[in-house]
């Protein structure tokens, strides 16, 4: 057991921080709008080889990279490209890769995606997509959203289905933890500097306790996600991490916007760059209830009655 990053892990994160500094955030953001796909950053990350299984990047390290990228609010399918796609497919795939809960619904990055992964009837499918044929959907919550145009549908080996479900849950959890990092940092800046009644609003206990409660959920999700990635996404650990992350996400969006007041609802403040994708992720997973039912299935239908850890 060791919760500290070792030297190679620190080097990996320093490396991705360098890529992010050059391509994301602040005035270096090249995006025309907040809801578009940041292809320049995505290409830079891909060219630098940040994919699980490549350059000796372990799944845990890939999850840490996902968190690091997500916390900048970068508008790319980060978990799909760095963690889920490489671990499920084990071969190169066309980017952007969209991850789908079901056919026919609007899909995050569907407007630009060239491939897709979907789980249907216990089999995973790799879809080849035609971005030119997609039907864009106006969507405040998720970037580059569209209904897909599918040109090819490959049913993957039987083993892919469980691998996809489990790594997808870890990927969503990692992305959510990173988004929560970004959302919290943005809000804490505001709470420390904005004064009302002659004092920073972050000094009020009513505000502090809400943020502290959120911190419990957030940090719990972070370590459960790291643990699940390190363990190789066994079903119970993956579902637990995802449920913990979605619980934190649900709590965070409401609380962080509440304590940020009307300012938090403006484009300029930018909290929505983190909170809106958190809502989209929740929807994409089928909701917290689905995650909880997966936890229940993994915990209690495969174990003897009354079994303990």
């Amino acid at each position, binding site marked *: *057991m*060791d*919760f*500290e*990053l*070792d030297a190679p*892990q620190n080097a990996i994160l320093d490396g991705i921080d360098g890529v992010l500094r050059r391509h994301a955030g602040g005035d270096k953001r090249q995006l025309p709008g907040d809801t578009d796909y940041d292809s320049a950053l995505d290409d830079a990350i891909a060219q630098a080889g940040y994919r699980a299984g490549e350059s000796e990047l372990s799944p*845990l390290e890939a999850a*840490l990279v996902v968190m690091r990228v997500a916390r900048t609010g970068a508008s790319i399918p980060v978990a799909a490209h760095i963690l889920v796609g490489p671990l499920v497919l084990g071969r190169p795939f066309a980017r952007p890769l969209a991850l789908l809960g079901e056919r026919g619904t609007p899909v995050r990055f569907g407007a630009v995606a060239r491939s897709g992964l979907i789980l249907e009837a216990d089999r995973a499918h790799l879809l080849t997509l035609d971005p030119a044929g997609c039907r864009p959907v106006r969507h405040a919550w998720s970037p580059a959203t569209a209904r897909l145009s599918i040109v090819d549908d490959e049913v993957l080996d039987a083993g892919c289905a469980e691998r996809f479900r489990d790594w997808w849950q870890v990927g969503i959890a990692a992305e959510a933890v990173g988004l929560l990092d970004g959302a*919290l940092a943005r809000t*804490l800046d505001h*709470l*420390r500097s904005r004064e009302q009644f002659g*004092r*920073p609003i*972050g*000094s*009020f*206990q009513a*505000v*502090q*306790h809400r*943020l*502290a*409660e959120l*911190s*419990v*959920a957030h*940090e*719990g*999700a972070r*370590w*459960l996600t*790291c*643990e699940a990635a*390190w*363990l190789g996404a066994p079903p119970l650990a993956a579902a*637990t991490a995802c*449920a*913990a992350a979605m*619980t934190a996400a649900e709590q965070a969006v409401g609380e962080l916007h509440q304590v940020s007041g009307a300012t938090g609802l403006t484009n300029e403040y930018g909290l929505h760059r983190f909170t809106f994708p958190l809502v989209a992720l929740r929807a994409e997973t089928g909701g*917290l*209830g689905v*995650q*909880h*039912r*997966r*936890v*229940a*299935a993994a*915990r*209690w239908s495969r174990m003897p*009655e*009354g*079994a*303990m*850890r």
Partner: protein
Amino acid sequence: MEFAWSEEDRSFRRELREFLAATLPPGWVEREADPSESEHVAFSRQYAKRLAERGWLTPHWPREYGGQEATPWRMTVLAEELWAHGEPRGPQYMNVNWIGPTIMAHGSDEQKRYHLPRIAGGDVIWCQGFSEPNAGSDLTALSTKAVRDGDVYVVNGQKIWTSYANEAEFCFLLVRTGVSGDPREGITILLTPMGLPGIEVRDIGAVVGEHAFHEVFFSDVRVPVDCRLGDEGRGWDLVRTALSRERVGSRRYTRTGATVDRTASWARDHDRFDDSSVQERLAEAWVACEVARVLSYKVVDEVARGETRGASASLARVAATRADQAAGNLCVDLMGVEGLAAGGSADVQYRRLALVAGIAAGATEVQLDLIARGGLRLPRQR
């Protein structure tokens, strides 16, 4: 960063489980006894001795005091398994975890010679004389007074909420021996035998357990000066250090997790498990236990590398409290009126555990303050 138990720790867990299965009475884990019951305490007294015989009561102590210098991770295995099995050590956690180590660090040779073998052998129960009617979360407001009179301190005052005061042979007693502008100064620790004349223990009728709380009255109690731990008036620093030894806190999330597992079995036995809303509630409580577990591990990791600051301990404590509350709510909603019958699972989990969780060993609100300031760096409240 890695999340594997060492082979030695895994093998220790197996050995411990076998021992617990072989030595705990049938139905012990499931009976969910009130830990303050005299019968439970009596069992704990003899069971602690069995653990001590195997070196499992104080394995983390230094070798010169009979320990094995076990790592914080080894202690985590021990504590997790014991909590998952109904915590048969009962009230031993205080003396084993922080009273003994504090005596080691600050006690006289005579105090070490007398107290440490008794604690290590599981022969003694201690209580903690901290809270007073007007000193709870703000402990430095304590006013129980000790006045030096030759070779004794004459103690007058009152302690409250003192768990196990009815059973304890000794009290780790905080008294005020001086008054200055700083309330942290003038506090002195007396290792007080509970049999001294002038000490009266009264039960406080409580809804959460038969002998859960006590008041302890001190009327002209003459405590020998030899019982003083450390210097007069300098007790507060010792207490802070002592309580930092409790940084990891209890591993009660394993007991809560075991309760959730048993509730899942109950749901299956009562044809409720296939109801998706039941599964969701069970999983919600289970995830809360897992959050508490992993946040507790984070603290263990910090302790193992010698870090003593930061908000991790508070995060873990709040998480453990929330897990107990989630399990309490689960049991009540699922098991209904039948489960709330005295001694039923819902009754035990909600009344004895969930209601107490955020109060015992430090109010949740204090932990949230510590997270806000220490972890999130929010400005101090004025």
